[in-house]
């Protein structure tokens, strides 16, 4: 593994090795002194061309716990500055002699395109509606903590599947680990050809939740609700929100995940988000451990 550009292309073994490494990293995060010298002297650039506080901070903490220097580069504008090419950006980054690049961009494919143009490892921290592999790995780690193994488990992913990079990476990682994955949402939010990725689409929340071991609730973006995909927030909240009533259709103790930040009362009710089966805060903790594992495997000595 030279880069982490997506879950697509990772073998089951590579995924399991990342999760095992992340488990070991969790232990470091629980120490009094939460820092090991493993990546001392390494420089990691967090290139966030689309703003995201949570993911950036998670990567930053992960780098610091491994004693790497983390530098944040944030784009002021929306994307590449005018007339700057990907090749220009790549050569600028290489000239800084950094050891690893973490890239978040609002456009699908940018981490892959940069990886083709630089010699250092690249980690995709979310690209458009394509992939968000570290989110998927932390979700898989969270579910593994709940169930021991995902083999044969039923996981429902609910929301705007078409525009969600989390959905794509999640369904790929859960399927790779042997789970049965259902994706659910109104048909306007289910992308064409999704069955080719090995999942079954559901157009009813109740059907998708029946007998599920876990539910991943996706964040609904306001602009989608007001666009052509859905008539409005009220209709969504009344028919697609995960509430205590709808959650009861899943297996008892079903795990509830959400990539955050949550829209209370829209895709998830507070009564569910804050209650016991919710693993939303564990996800945040696991996020740091997974990102430590990724940085370690890509820059560490064990390559």
């Amino acid at each position, binding site marked *: 593994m030279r880069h982490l550009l997506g879950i697509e292309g990772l073998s089951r073994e590579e995924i399991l090795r990342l999760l095992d490494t992340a488990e070991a990293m969790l232990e470091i995060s629980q120490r009094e002194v939460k820092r090991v010298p493993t990546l001392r002297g390494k420089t990691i650039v967090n290139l966030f061309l689309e703003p995201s506080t949570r993911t950036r901070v998670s990567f930053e903490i992960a780098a610091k716990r491994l004693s790497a220097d983390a530098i944040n580069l944030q784009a002021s504008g929306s994307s*590449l500055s005018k007339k700057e090419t990907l090749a220009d950006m790549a050569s600028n980054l290489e000239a800084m002699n950094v050891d690893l690049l973490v890239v978040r961009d609002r456009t699908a*494919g940018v981490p892959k395109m940069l990886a083709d143009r630089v010699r250092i490892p690249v980690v995709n921290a979310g690209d458009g509606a394509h992939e968000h592999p570290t989110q998927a790995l932390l979700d898989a780690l969270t579910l593994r903590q709940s169930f021991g193994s995902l083999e044969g488990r039923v996981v429902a992913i609910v929301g705007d599947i078409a525009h969600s990079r989390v959905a794509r990476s999640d369904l790929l990682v859960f399927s790779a680990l042997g789970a049965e994955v259902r994706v659910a949402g109104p048909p306007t939010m289910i992308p064409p*050809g999704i069955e080719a*990725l090995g999942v079954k689409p559901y157009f009813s929340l109740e059907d998708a939740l029946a007998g599920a071991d876990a539910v991943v609730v996706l964040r609904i973006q306001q602009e989608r609700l007001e666009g052509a995909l859905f008539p409005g927030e009220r209709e969504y909240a009344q028919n697609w929100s995960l509430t205590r009533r709808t959650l009861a259709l899943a297996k008892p103790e079903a795990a509830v995940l959400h990539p955050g930040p949550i829209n209370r009362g829209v895709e998830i009710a507070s009564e569910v988000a804050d209650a016991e089966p919710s693993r939303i805060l564990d996800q945040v903790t696991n996020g740091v451990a997974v990102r430590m594992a990724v940085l370690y495997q890509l820059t560490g000595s064990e390559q």
Partner: protein
Amino acid sequence: MSGLRIRKARVLDPASGRDEELDLEVEGGRISALGRDLPGRPEHVVEADGLWLAPGFVDLHSHLREPGQEYKEDIASGSLAAAAGGFTTVCCMANTDPVNDSPAITEYIRRRARESARVRVRPIAAATQGLRGEIMTEMISLTKAGAVAFSDDGEVIRDAAVMRRVLEYARGVDRPVIAHCEDPDLRGAGVMHEGGCSTACGLTGSPAEAESVMVARDLELARLSGAHLHIAHVSAGRSVELIREAKERGVRVTAEVTPHHLTFTDEIVRNYDTNAKMAPPLRSARDREALREGLADGTLDCVATDHAPHAAYEKDVEFTAAPFGVVGLETALPALLAVVRSGALSELEAVAKLSHAPARAFGLRAGTLEVGALADFVLIAPELAWKPEPSDLRSRSKNSPFLRRELVGRVVGTFVAGERVFDLGTGS
């Protein structure tokens, strides 16, 4: 003076159906004789043993970018690319800067062609002023100035009533209206074909129906107006069916397909290669199969390149930000020969689709090797394998999806009015 003789070439002339080893002789810029062991001693002799001799290719759809975007291409560089690809006639699209929507611009393009082009350049004028889809252009004056067809290519005439009037008016000058069929609303922000690949890539797709609903509309309007509609770069299988049915009903429609749509599918977008981004997009394998069948049965009359040069720095950006379009003049022949190897076309048919068929579609005097015709022809090494590098392309821009792919068949010589305008051997 007895000028030039090409000896012992395999002559492929779709107009006459001829396919045999012959000598061809040129005098005064025209084909003067065609036969076995011609008598006399011409001034120049080209030994063409093992080569094909075909009519010069005719491209109904090229963007030569002059005036206004000479950093991408100009008439000189574009015509050099054309010559290297075997094209002796190129029809250039109107979306230049300024737009070719007035006789003065049409005349300017023709003058620049006389000054700098190696091949024949025939301007296509805009169908509406400024490509705005509102007021039609001065089609009668434009025809007199040398426009061979009318098109807002790149833009779509959204308003069906405007499209109707454009077709009706063009009927009066008996010139085709070329339609780029993509419903702008259905296409939306789509940057590739909508399907499993767009879902996996996380890129916004544009469904095949964005094309076919517009094809259906324009076919109905062609029937209503009785005008000649030419459908550009057909990409969807459903469009082929609609055109086939319209032809059966007697609608005056012709259609073209590009070498890239005949070759690739949306699968090659998976690595976010912006040289695989064009409009309409590469579609599914089933669509590609339908395009090949449509080309074979004549539903799609001919091949046209939609040669659309863009500078390297314009393409080296995010997939969504990159401009649509690929160059195509220099790789059209090997792409068609691959279709021949797939069994869909004969060799003579492939030559026809590049030369005689497009000339006939637009009523151009080209694409034939009959005695007395202009001596525009091409010499082809049919088995020559090559992998194009950017430096192999004569076009000023290198945005080709065929780069570094194994191609078989290459143009080795191109002649316009009997003058050699391209020689692969000498590299000029």
